């Protein structure tokens, strides 16, 4: 198990380096300029000066090496300095956003908590809804409940979040006045009323995302359950005189969860990325909204860093899913 994990870890490093190069080049070679957003009343000489001040006029490979150094050395060193009060990073230049001129990682640090609370809650809620639905739909295949579950899942699958989000805003905010349309990021949860406010402002984005997540996971759960229900060991368990409850929830569920756990782990990076539209729609200042804003403003350092962080997350969670699979299913361990 250990060698398996180590081997996967070692393989991840060159993968990440390669991804970083691709992302850097892709974003860099895309047409557009960070100065295109500024009004035409600003004269070209001033534009040129601004570009030079950003460092955007340097050759691409110089910026790539500099960015790698900043990403893998300066930023971690600054983080460690912040924890232990050291001075490893010294006065090294950090990765600065072209838009706000503040360090990219400070911005990301400010935004991760919002993404985790709102989008993370939605994911957990989605899982909590999807698994029971999947189990029951499979156990009573083609029943009314199963058909209804299929219908809801299909809606969740096929309706894009920008549509369901706007629909929810019109129903719950404009007509019913239940929830606010804009997420207040300055709200501090200190007592019961502020907690209620927090729940209210989280309600709509969480509902939208939970619907989309639950749809996918419940289908996986259902098909995995169905596959196991017909297996010989289930007949054996029934023949031994076990109750349906034990057969379904202990024997079948355990075995059916293996692929579903992998799907859930692999879906985690999408928590960060897939919620871009929802975050933007409800004004949740998570990292997805940061990515959209940075793309609009051609803020290359921000886009490159965020895209690379998404890549890291995908690789890491792939790794976790692999290891989990090995843990759950002894047959797969490559000793």
């Amino acid at each position, binding site marked *: 198990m250990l060698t398996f994990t180590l081997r996967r870890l070692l393989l991840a490093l060159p993968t990440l380096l390669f991804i970083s190069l691709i992302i850097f080049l892709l974003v860099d070679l895309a047409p557009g300029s960070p100065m295109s957003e500024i009004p035409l009343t600003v004269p070209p000489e001033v534009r040129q000066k601004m570009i030079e001040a950003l460092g955007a006029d340097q050759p691409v490979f110089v910026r790539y090496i500099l960015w790698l150094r900043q990403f893998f050395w300066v930023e971690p060193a600054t983080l460690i300095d912040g924890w232990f009060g050291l001075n490893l990073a010294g006065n090294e230049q950090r990765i600065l956003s072209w*838009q706000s001129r503040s360090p990219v990682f400070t911005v990301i640090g400010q935004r991760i908590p919002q993404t985790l609370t709102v989008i993370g809650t939605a994911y957990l809620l989605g899982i909590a809804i999807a698994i029971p639905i999947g189990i029951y739909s499979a156990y009573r295949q083609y029943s009314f409940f199963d058909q209804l579950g299929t219908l809801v899942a299909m809606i969740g699958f096929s309706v894009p979040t920008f549509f369901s989000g706007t629909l929810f805003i019109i129903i719950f905010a404009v007509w019913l006045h239940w929830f606010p349309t804009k997420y207040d990021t300055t709200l501090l949860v200190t007592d019961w009323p502020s907690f209620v406010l927090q729940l209210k402002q989280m309600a709509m984005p969480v509902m939208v995302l939970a619907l989309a997540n639950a749809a996918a996971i419940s289908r996986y759960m259902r098909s995995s359950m169905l596959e196991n229900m017909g297996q010989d060991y289930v007949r054996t368990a029934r023949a031994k005189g076990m109750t349906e409850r034990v057969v379904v929830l202990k024997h079948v569920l355990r075995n059916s969860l293996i692929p579903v756990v992998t799907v859930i782990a692999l879906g985690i990076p999408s928590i960060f990325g897939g919620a871009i539209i929802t975050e933007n729609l409800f004004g949740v200042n998570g990292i997805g909204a940061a990515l959209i804003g940075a793309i609009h403003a051609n803020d290359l350092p921000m886009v490159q860093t965020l895209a690379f962080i998404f890549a890291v997350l995908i690789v890491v969670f792939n790794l976790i899913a692999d290891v989990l699979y090995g843990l759950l299913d002894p047959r797969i361990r490559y000793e």
Partner: protein
Amino acid sequence: MNLKSALLGAVCAFAMAPAAFAERGTDGEVKLTFPQAVSIMNPYLSSGTKDIFAASMVVEPLAGYDDTGALIAKLVSEIPSVENGGISEDLTSITWKLLPGLLWGDGSPVTAADVVFTGQYCMDPAGGCAQLSKFEGIKSIEAVDDATVKITFNAPKPNPFTAFVGSTSPVLQKAQFAACMGAAAPTCTDPNSMPLGTGPFKVTGFTVNDTVSMEANANYRDATKPAFASAVIKGGGDAEGSARAVMSTGEFDYAWNTQIAPDSQAAMAAEGKGVFVVAFGTLVERLEMNMTDPSADLPEGERATVKHPHPFLTDINVRKALSMAIDRQTLTEVGYGAGGAPTCNIVPAPALYASDNTGCLTQDIEGAKALLEAAGWVDTNGDGIREKDGKNLSILYQSTVNPIRQDFQALIKDWWAEIGVETELKAIDPSVFFGGDAGSPDTFQKFYADVEMYANNFDGTDPEAYLTQYKCDKAPSPENQWQGENMNRFCDPAYDAMIAELSGTRDEAKRAELAKKLNDMVTKDSSIVVPLVHRGTLSAHSNALGGVKINAWDSELWNVADWFRVK
């Protein structure tokens, strides 16, 4: 004093009462929302309107513009003029006198040294100052004494109200920014996001690209203002969402830049919770006609340059017919609703400088056909496209990717088809079109098309610099790395001569007359530029917010100190 005057006095006193009772911080919180979130609070490092407007609540210039476009004193006792001795007779210097007892948000006094420092800060060549053009032609900025600043120019300057005038050029505190000069400017994250100012509000919290929290500035020069104790600007989302938050759900008091589809405007306004207000500045959506041949058959370096005149757009009758075929009223209704007005001018405002040119407002398809016919452009082969000397009237018409612009393109293409002109449409990503990359064929400067559409405006109230853009030597070409604002490659010695006359004229009425003539020369007389719609900025405020006076000449939030809660 008789009874009558005593009574009158009493009545006056009652009328004044609400103002007298007004007190700082009694009206709670004012909530603003911007569809683009605020990135930085230092206008010298950003030219984004969102950042400049947000910063205008905190940092202030010496003088600004009111809602009519007139100069108003902010941090100074009066607006300098030649008459009051503030501007030297030879127009080479301007002297500003600071208000006595002026304090920064932290309680320290504002001195002339702060103003001098701000000038040095922006003019530092390594700083990448976004407002450098405001400081153009300045020889020196010096502190005569603690309360007097003298700015000397290299040459006589008819309009000396550039540096420290308007929200793009506020005064920064020397003590806070002293370590942020030159190359260090962008790394000063804290001062850049929480600058100290003299304005009615003080930044208390700043989340990049999300929220700015502010509280009333205890040291603001008017002890009774602002009426609000705190203010918050929440950014992000889109124009539709911002408008909804004010007009439908009432979560916010003010939304800037709520340019949404005309039918949504009407639906939201009908709910009666708030109103849309429009700031009509100088922004004009226009068609620019290419006077040079953009044909791809020409070698690179000669394409779209003055070496090769355009095959048919050089014929004034063709340009005129193209303009006559357009129904500007319909375009305005389809694209902008209340946020736009049809126009025939490239200088549509201020009123003093706007020409009374309205001839283009009525569409005249028949007239356009007749004009082309008379000029010899006839459809001889029956394919619906007019031609002359083997040249087809077929146009490549480019613009940026934007739903309204694509609607405009489709409508105009139809009208042009009616008069026998074939049109091919092209939409380019705005960041490429406006990006100015000399290596890209799709920039608006290269203009590898026959007609292009975009919007442009000028800063402040004086159109001189803007009209100068159509001088011969401002044409983008390979020699100047495709820099320049004369996209049309228009060249008329009479125009250039009149520009020279304008820059030497001081008398305002005479300047206005010249500006109008120049405007007419490129629009009405030649149809080099075909203005379409005078665009305003649509904002929304709730009925519970009072004191809003929309302003197109300065920050929309220019009088935020006077805003109050309607009870």
